[in-house]
């Protein structure tokens, strides 16, 4: 069983594995980062570490994220980054045996696979691709 933290991007539901998240911060002071793309909302201080905040919906082509002070801080081992999303939901336990993996011929859609849970379809976010897109933008 794997624990996932689902969140919404527009009408779509996405999720991340709990193990890929360091923590969820709330009420952090958002600092503006000059000369960055529009997807960079700014930077926050997480226990002494300066972590940039990316507007995930805007990055993936959805409407921009609401002005919300709650961000997903990813594990530094994966990406030293915080994500702003539309809405956080409660943690769910799923069996990733049923994960339907996406075809690799579309590497730019940032979806690692699709999980069916309680008649709902949850896209598992591919953080590696997200990292690639950000790197591309920063070049």
């Amino acid at each position, binding site marked *: 069983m794997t*624990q996932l933290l689902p969140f919404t991007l527009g009408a779509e539901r996405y999720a991340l594995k709990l193990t890929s998240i*360091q*923590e*969820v911060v*709330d009420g952090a002071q958002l600092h503006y980062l000059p000369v960055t793309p529009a997807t960079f909302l700014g930077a926050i201080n997480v226990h002494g570490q300066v972590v940039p905040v990316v507007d995930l919906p805007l990055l993936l082509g959805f409407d921009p994220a609401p002005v919300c002070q*709650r961000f997903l801080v990813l594990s530094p081992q994966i990406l030293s980054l915080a994500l702003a999303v539309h809405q956080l939901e*409660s*943690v769910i336990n799923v069996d990733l045996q049923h994960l339907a993996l996406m075809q690799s011929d579309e590497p730019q859609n940032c979806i690692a696979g699709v999980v069916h849970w309680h008649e709902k379809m949850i896209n598992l976010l591919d953080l590696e691709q997200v990292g690639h897109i950000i790197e591309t933008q920063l070049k």
Partner: protein
Amino acid sequence: MRIEISHKFVLGFVVVVGSIVFLDYLVPVLGFIPQSMQQFVSTLGALLVGLVFGWIFSKAFTSNIGILTTGAERLSHGDLSRTLKLRKGLVSDETEDLADSLNLVVDNLRKVVGKIRTTSVRVNESSQGLSASAEEMTATSHEVAGAIEQISRGAETQAEMVEKVSRVIRDLAGSIEQITASSQILALSSAETTKTAKDGGQLTDTALEKMKLVLSDVEGNSRQMVSFSEHVQKIGTIIDVITGIAQKTNLLALNATIEAARAGEYGQGFAVVAEEISKLADSTSASAGEITRLIDTTRDESLRVHQSMLDSVRAIDAGRGAIDSTSGVFRAIIEKAEDAQGKAHKITALTEQQNKNATEIVAAIEEISRVAEDNAAGTEQVSAATEEQSAAMEELTYASQKLAQLADELLTTVSRFNLGSDAEAPA
């Protein structure tokens, strides 16, 4: 000296005989006449004396008779213009008497004829005037007859009109009686209205007092409601705090879950606790949300109540104004009703007077009706009298024309007499 004709004859004879005797004695005395001649001279002288006396006498006698005859003939022809004048002799006789008598006759006749002529002319004129007057009177009496006829017709119309007026006045009298009854009812009604309006005025005063009480109650309630709203507001603030705590708790539980997941096998027990905490936080959050909704509902309700109380206060204020106005209106009604009562009493008195007057008018109209009938009868009588008068006038005209004719005839008759110039133009 007057000597009658018979005496004159005797006197003549005596003179002739005396002259014969006297000559017989005279001739011889004279002496120049021869004796033979004396007889002859005396005879001759006597004859001469007889002749002279006879001639003078007959001459005087016949001339008077001739004058008288001529006068009588003139008289017989109707000539009354001249009087008889006899030759004046030494001695007068019966011929002069006869001439005087004839002159008297002529004079009298002249007077009579003149009188007749004058009178007949006057009669003629008068009868013509009479005739004209009678004709005028006839015409006038015809006009009078026409006028009387008109009067008669007018009298009939008058009688009809009087009848109509009588009916109308009776109807009017009936109406006036109804008005009297109505005005009495009106007086009663206005008295009742006055009483009702007074009761209404007292009721509005009571209502005003009660409304003041209600208003103060409502104002108290409003203050309480404001205080209640403030309390609810405070509860809302507290619930906000609770909601914030629940969210923070939830976040902490989420982060604890993440930590537990990163801890792997060793974090499983911790993950269960974190899940329970998360559920508690969710439950708290749900309850807080419920309370918030309730508070919102309560706030809305209390706002509505407050608003409706304000409305009530305004309505009560308006009602107080309305009741004040109503009170004024009731006072006005009382005044008007009392006024109406007085007027109704006056109307009653007036209509009673009118009723009496109408009765008098009916009596007067009946009197007029009787007079009109009498007038109609009178005009009929007058009409008949006028017709009689008209007939009499026509007879009178005829008679006066006849009279004029007779006067003409009389004038013609007397015009045979010639009265001379002094009598031709009688006055």
